[in-house]
């Protein structure tokens, strides 16, 4: 038991610099990027907007509820559901900010490949969701 506790504490201690770094970066993005900025990056283009949504969602940080609120506001401002879906899926699944931490703890190649696949699938999930909603 003592050995397990020591091993866990050691492993956890090693991750503290990374967790603090990610947390400091998330705090900076939350304060430096106002929610009103998100609406300005969308163009109204059906093909381009889902990609923009996925890029912005990948860079953004914070509680997923924030992405729902911003997404709701974006729809009210005329941004397509396709773009908003890509935005909220990328918000929770991609994460540029935590990429260095993920690379350190799970392997750089793993983190990079997962990052790329999750980015592409954020767009795919958004397209499929919008398509299915039209069919229903």
């Amino acid at each position, binding site marked *: *038991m003592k050995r*397990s*506790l020591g*091993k*866990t504490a050691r*492993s*956890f201690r*090693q*991750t503290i*610099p*990374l*967790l*603090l*770094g*990610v*947390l*400091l*970066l*998330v*705090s*900076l993005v*939350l*304060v*430096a990027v106002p929610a009103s900025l998100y609406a300005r990056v969308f163009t109204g283009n059906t093909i381009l907007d889902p990609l923009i949504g996925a890029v912005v969602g990948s860079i953004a940080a914070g509680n*997923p*509820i924030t992405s*729902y*609120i911003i*997404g*709701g506001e974006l*729809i009210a401002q005329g941004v397509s*559901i396709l773009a*908003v*879906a890509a935005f909220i*899926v990328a918000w*929770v*699944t991609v*994460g540029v900010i*935590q990429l*260095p*931490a*993920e*690379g*350190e*703890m*799970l392997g750089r*190649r*793993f983190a990079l*490949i*997962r990052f790329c*696949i*999750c980015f592409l*699938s954020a767009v*795919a*999930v958004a397209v*499929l*969701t919008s398509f*299915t*909603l039209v069919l*229903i």
Partner: protein
Amino acid sequence: MIPMKPSGRNIFLLVIAALYAALAAYDIALLMETLRTFVNLLGKIVPVLLLVFAMMFIVDLVVEPGAVKKRLGKGSGSMGWGVAVLGGVLSTGPIYVWYPLLGDLRKKGVRDSLIVAFLYARAVKIPMAPMMIYYFGWTFTAVLYLYIIVFSVVNGILVERLLRDSVE
């Protein structure tokens, strides 16, 4: 004296510290607001960190690497996928607090594809579903969550295959 080699973890923190130092020189009010946000976030993640620490301790204490390999390693089948997806859906807090536990489980033999599935399935947030339904409607929420679950498995398979191909 042995010179201390800086690890990637410490370099990352140093880069962020340098960013904060630059922010202090540029806009002290923004720095103070950022630090307040940081303290607020830290307070929120501490309970999740304690939960992850407890889970890591329990896993190390009671779970044998052989058992992990059998249930969540290669050949774990649909049970492995089920555990990974359900674990992802039920997990709470920010994604990065789960990295240490996932790293430990990986060393014990958990498949990469299941780690990917766990991380992706975290996009399904049951406690936050009412909020999503309020903004986007229940049909959108149900369809989106369904696709996320499907893609957590698809992504797991894809990432594992790409990782294998990049090694070969």
